[in-house]
């Protein structure tokens, strides 16, 4: 009897293709992503892409230039010559992990064997990468400057360009709150979008279509509902993070509100887009789980972007999560002015607009088609 019931259950289980995808394909994809991020996979066959470190040579002597050339020959880092102002700006904006500054008098200090006037200015939000850069540079100095024991005698001064203070959030907290908030929001919104399919199954959608209501208005109304819920959910999460963990949400309220609006728009349109691509609740359930987890994984909600291999960092830009999390870093960690955050908001709006347009077409084809 047990075997009979078991056989029936297995038959039913394997007849659900979406269920099989969630059970087998999704974990495989997740394992692959995490293996690339943490497991050193892909590093044996080819060397990892070197970390870009900006270099400002204020000494401009043969000694400093020769050392820069030698350091640049190392495989792990790639030195990019830059002016001090733009170098520090790029690090502050999270574009590069650090800037190595050779102060005037470097060559003299090498000759006189005194403390070297060099400083590594870095973005503390990219702590893991910074540790690699710091270690590699110290080894480089030790090797290329002859017998000098850099670790013990040469001070490679390191300075975080963005200091943690009572008015700033810890980058880990920004990552945790921002990443989780967007991922959970995607799940909530997919469920709200699924309401359209419930209406289709219940027959209320048909009644809406019979009434003098344009199909596009039905779609936009559902998106509006999703957007209101998104705004409330994100706001609640940030208020909680403020109350429980001291996230300074009042640091730049205007930018935060604008970013929440942009994320809500993008996520709502994503929810409606998901719903428009399927015909039943069951299809939505399987597909949304796969897409949201995948998007959150590559977009930085589960693993900080800086820890991912270069190719994954490039893929990350297709996800709403990436632009949202980067926006939160800009506000809470980098403390950038609104003008510097606007491009990210613009991309979120563009993603939202694009998905809304596609949803409109698919909605007519998949959801409101009456037979």
């Amino acid at each position, binding site marked *: 009897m047990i075997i009979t019931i078991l056989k029936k259950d297995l038959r039913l289980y394997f007849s659900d293709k979406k269920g099989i995808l969630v059970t087998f394909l999704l974990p495989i994809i997740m394992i692959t992503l995490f293996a690339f991020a943490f497991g050193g996979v892909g590093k044996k066959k080819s060397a990892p892409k070197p970390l870009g470190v900006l270099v400002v040579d204020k000494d401009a002597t043969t000694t400093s230039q020769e050392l820069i050339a030698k350091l640049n020959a190392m495989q792990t880092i790639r030195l990019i010559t830059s002016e001090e102002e733009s170098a520090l700006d790029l690090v502050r904006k999270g574009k590069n992990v650090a800037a190595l500054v050779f102060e005037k008098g470097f060559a003299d200090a090498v000759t006189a064997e005194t403390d070297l006037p060099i400083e590594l200015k870095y973005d503390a939000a990219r702590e893991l990468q910074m540790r690699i850069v710091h270690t590699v540079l110290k080894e480089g100095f030790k090797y290329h400057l002859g017998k000098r024991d850099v670790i013990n005698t040469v001070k490679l001064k390191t300075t975080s360009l963005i200091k943690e203070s009572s008015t700033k959030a810890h980058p880990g907290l920004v990552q945790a709150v921002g990443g989780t908030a967007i991922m959970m929001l995607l799940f909530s919104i997919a469920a709200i979008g699924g309401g359209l399919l419930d209406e289709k199954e*219940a*027959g*209320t959608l*048909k*009644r*809406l*279509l*019979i*009434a*003098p*209501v344009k199909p596009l208005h039905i779609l936009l109304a559902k998106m509006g509902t999703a957007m209101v819920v998104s705004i409330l959910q994100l706001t609640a999460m940030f208020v909680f993070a403020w109350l429980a963990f001291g996230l300074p949400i009042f640091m730049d309220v205007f930018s935060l509100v604008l970013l929440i609006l942009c994320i809500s728009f993008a996520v709502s349109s994503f929810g409606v887009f998901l719903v428009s691509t399927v015909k039943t609740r069951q299809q939505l359930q399987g597909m949304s789980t796969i897409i949201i987890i995948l998007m959150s994984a590559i977009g930085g909600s589960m693993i900080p972007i800086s820890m991912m291999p270069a190719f994954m960092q490039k893929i990350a830009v297709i996800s709403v999560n990436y632009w949202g999390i980067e926006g939160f870093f800009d506000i809470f960690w980098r403390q950038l002015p609104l003008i510097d955050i606007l491009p990210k908001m613009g991309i979120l709006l563009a993603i939202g607009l694009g998905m809304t347009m596609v949803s409109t077409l698919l909605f007519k084809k998949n959801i409101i088609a*009456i*037979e």
Partner: protein
Amino acid sequence: MIQVQNLSKSFQNIQAVNDISFTIKKGEIFGLLGPNGAGKSTTLNMMSTILTSDAGSIHIDGKNSFENSKECKHLIGVVPQEISLYEDLSAYQNLLFWGDLYGIPSKKLKEKIHSTLELIGLLDRKNDLIKTYSGGMKRRINIAAALLHNPKVLFMDEPTVGIDPQSRNHIFEVIETLNAQGMTIVYTTHYMEEVERLCDRIAIIDSGKIIAQGTQSQLQELVQTKESVQLEFEFLSENNVNQLRESLSYTMIQNNNKLLVESTIKELSKVITACNELQLSIKDIQLNKVNLEAIFLNLTGKQLRD
């Protein structure tokens, strides 16, 4: 009031509606009778302006419904086959929502909701959630939601599916009241008793085609024999039916172990004798006056609920 001309609709390779035409007069109850899958709902969906046709036209109160769908939506009320209501809202909240979509001014809408709830006998339950209602009560609210904008025509797609006889009677009374007030009603069903009770004229639809239309008496004229005998046997083979056909001159339609014999009741003894000669064991005998079921059977060779 409504003119349907040469209407056709197919889905992929299935011809759901095939070149049908009929006219519905103002103030009449017009029945579309046919088995499941006959094309009734597809026809009604096209008349409700939510489905386009492959060919043909529909005119409602002189307006082409495909070209003037917005105007026509205000002329028609539709009672869908499904209970198209929000279960977690009260009856009143549902009606307020559906009425609001037609742009009815708030005060007028509230008055209309009150009178409609009174008509369907659910005024005292207006604040209860739909999910607490019985099937019959939900069906009544489903009808009420289609009446709020005072439509000239009411399309009802199998509005009594799955409800008890008492609720069904209540719905019939509502329909008769609405009709007495001058409302034109198009009623689809596969229950011939409903059509017989309610409809002034009937179109019988099967496999997307209208196979007959007219008043009940006009349809009865299509069948020569006005009475029939239905016999149910323990076992009935095709061979048995052929043997009966040889000995009796009546039209016979076999449906598994049942046999419809178009004979008068007076001639019943002849039929039984023939069966006895073939040693057929009769389980049950029903004597039928001709009805729409028999007409449908006669015209299509199928039963309405096949």
